[in-house]
């Protein structure tokens, strides 16, 4: 298992039209910290990861994973195949 933490923060933030500053205020951190998280230069505590997941209303593993995320197109194709 990889030690690197991958995340989908930029995608979720862009989808909601949310700035780094807005997300930072919602979870109580410095806006720079959101930038560090998005670039994978900082691994959040479990508390911070859960707070961010709560902001987007998704499980924490939807945002953070130890394996790289599949591109959205590939994920959608897999889902459509699964659903027939």
């Amino acid at each position, binding site marked *: 298992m990889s030690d690197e933490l991958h995340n989908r923060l930029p995608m979720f933030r862009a989808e909601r039209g949310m700035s*780094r*500053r807005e997300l930072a205020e919602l979870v*109580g*951190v*410095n*806006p*720079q*910290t*959101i*930038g*560090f998280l998005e670039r994978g*230069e*900082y691994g*959040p*505590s479990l508390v*911070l990861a859960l707070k961010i997941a709560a902001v987007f209303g998704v499980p924490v593993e939807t945002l953070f994973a130890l394996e790289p995320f599949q591109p959205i197109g590939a994920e959608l194709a897999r889902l459509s195949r699964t659903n027939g």
Partner: protein
Amino acid sequence: MTKTFSIPLQAPRARALSVLVYSSLAVGYLADAAFPDLEGPLFALTGVLKLTGLVGAAALFLSNYGQQSQMGDSALDERERDERNRAYVATHQIMLGCLFAFFIYGLVAEAAGLWRPQGEGALDMLSAFAIGSMALPGAILAWRDRALPDEG
């Protein structure tokens, strides 16, 4: 996040200031200790270097980086706390390294009959060490700052 007074410095300026501070302190105090009989322009130059080091170290201490190193846990987020703690670990290691190097040099210099600071010179060098230590956590934070310019 609590706001305290600080001198706002961008990372490149804080890094340049740290280079100026530590080179001025090293040259100024070492020259003063090694050549206690300096007179005229050279004596004035060591004075200017020592003053530059002192004022620069105070500016670094009062900068946003220096203040981040002094802030309590509640004023920082978890990443900033982590950076501050790592800066203090590095400061401790550097200070101990310098002290041991100084003591070992003193022992070797005594045995080999080399120059070593005496009396007031040794006290002066201790002052330089204290002044440098004061600004070191902030300087380390500035050198380690990887934030992008648009991240505020």
